């Protein structure tokens, strides 16, 4: 009769790492730290430095130096200020619209819809993520162009689309980033124990009271998580404005125009959305929602 005997194999690397906790830690974080510090932080830092450099107005050559002219320009020239505010409002509108649609949709999917409807909707929400970003923008462009689908479909009702303008940019950005809001909100609502709905109604609360007092507070972290995406992605976007905005300028459009002509101004201007996002995150942090993200 043969017998298989499990031999105890020596594992020198594992045993070594088991004892040296610092070496173990180092081996785990080296790669991600290289990425974060080497690629992320350094490039942001270089961008910040560039913002202080000069451009020779005749040769258009960039020369290192230190001046605050670029910052002064983006903070005082009315066109720049107007664009900053416009971009901020667009990003806030996109976020608000995403929240406005995501909550009822999430409640319906998580608590009311039959399983097959729920799955269908989950696929429908994520489906746009499978298509390319540019493809989706062009699709919106085709829908809202002069001879496009919208005007054709609405013609019998005597309605005409607004043409390429800020509303269409907001609509396009909402379309682009909605999944990033809808999915976390839906997941959060799904995680609310069904008993809480029963308990609320047992104690006399009607539907809207339950949504207001129980659902809202419990999904706030998810809404804020989603809004970090919808807000920051909208803030940095410029292709939506370019293809569906007509003459609409966003911060991104101006950076894109300046990136070759005047890199220091582009760099200084790109500090604006970073600044907005930092403020936004600080506000979000104050609500205590980020800890639960």
């Amino acid at each position, binding site marked *: 009769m043969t017998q298989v005997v499990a031999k105890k194999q020596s594992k020198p690397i594992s045993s070594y790492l088991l004892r040296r906790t610092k070496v173990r830690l180092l081996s785990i974080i080296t790669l991600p730290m290289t990425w974060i510090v080497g690629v992320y932080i350094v490039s942001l830092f270089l961008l910040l430095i560039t913002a202080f450099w000069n451009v020779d107005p005749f040769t258009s050559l960039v020369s290192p130096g230190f001046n605050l002219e670029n910052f002064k320009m983006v903070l005082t020239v009315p066109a720049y200020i107007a664009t900053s505010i416009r971009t901020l409002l667009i990003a806030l509108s996109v976020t608000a619209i995403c929240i406005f649609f995501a909550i009822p949709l999430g409640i319906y999917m998580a608590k009311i819809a039959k399983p097959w409807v729920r799955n269908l909707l989950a696929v429908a929400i994520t489906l746009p993520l499978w298509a390319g970003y540019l493809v989706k923008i062009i699709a919106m462009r085709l829908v809202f162009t002069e001879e496009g689908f919208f005007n054709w479909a609405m013609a019998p009702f005597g309605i005409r689309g607004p043409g390429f303008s800020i509303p269409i940019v907001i609509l396009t950005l909402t379309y682009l980033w909605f999944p990033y809001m809808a999915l976390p909100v839906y997941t959060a609502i799904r995680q609310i*124990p069904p*008993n*809480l709905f*029963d*308990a*609320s*109604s*047992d*104690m*006399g*609360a*009607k539907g809207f*009271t339950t949504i207001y*007092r*129980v659902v809202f*507070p*419990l999904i706030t972290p998810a809404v804020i998580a989603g809004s970090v995406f919808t807000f920051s992605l909208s803030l940095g976007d410029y292709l939506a404005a370019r293809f569906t905005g007509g003459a609409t300028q966003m911060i991104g459009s101006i950076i894109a125009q300046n990136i070759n002509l005047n890199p220091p101004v582009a760099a200084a201007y790109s500090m604006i959305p970073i600044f907005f996002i930092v403020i936004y995150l600080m506000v979000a942090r104050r609500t205590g929602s980020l800890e639960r993200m």
Partner: protein
Amino acid sequence: MALIEIRNLAKAFGTVKAVDGVTLDIGSGEFITLLGPSGSGKTTVLRMIAGFEDPDAGSISLAGEDITHLPPFDRDVNTVFQDYALFPHMTIQENVEYGLRTRKVPKVERAKQALEAIASVKLEHTADRLPHQLSGGQRQRIALARALVLRPRVLLLDEPLGALDRQLREEMQVELKKIQRDAGITFIFVTHDQEEAMRMSDRIVVFNEGRVEQVGTPQDVYNKPATRFVAGFLGAANIVSGEDAKKVFGKSKTVSIRPERMRLQPSNSKISSDESSVSAVVQEAAFVGANTVYIVETEFGLRLNVSKTNTELLGQDKSFAAGDRVLVVWHNSQAAEIPA
């Protein structure tokens, strides 16, 4: 007139008949327990009384008013949930105030009532904490306070002690019974634990497969089980039917007899005139602390469980051992005929 009248209540989930024609009257101030194995329909009946499920057929009335299809927020009943269902984002006080708030009780008044309710379950010091900072037993009591603060006519309790450990459970059983007696509220209590049911209830409703098997006091359902299921579900029972019943009890019906209502005697001993016996051989004797449980087998192959309370002085144990010939003896009144 009964406080709650349930008539021919039915509810199906898909093709499964969860509740299949339940009729039941519940009196005012009564502690009534719906007892049955999981899936027997007891929780569904409770949820229909609460208004969380809409019955397919039948009716429920509360104090003469038809409440069959009323939403939960329009019924004068409150529920203590199995996993407590405290709102995790609200403090204990906010949780207890919730129902008062939806009833638009002024702020000062509702804080006063809520704190009183929290004090009544001896948890004043937790008012500012969040539910996750409390132990299971504490959360259970807060859930109770949250329901009682609304002074409902009927309190529904859905296996509220299921998640507690044994000792805490027994403490809470006593406490619940006391609260019920003091408040004079009707309690409808759902459990699958027959001991808990007998310990607390005025009456027990035994459920099986969506139907009511028997309604009665704990003594009734234990001593005079109406069906084979009831006899087997509440405590241990020897259920004897057919030919065996004729040979042992001289009856053509099914008979149930509890192991502790029979005793063993040496095979040549005498019995009194109102007793009956059957001779058997001990197969197995298991000492389980307070009791010794014997499994004996008659000549015609019927196996019976006999339980003996261990009351002998130490060292004077007259117990029987496997292989002993014995007489199984019982008082004639202890053999309960099962009608169904």
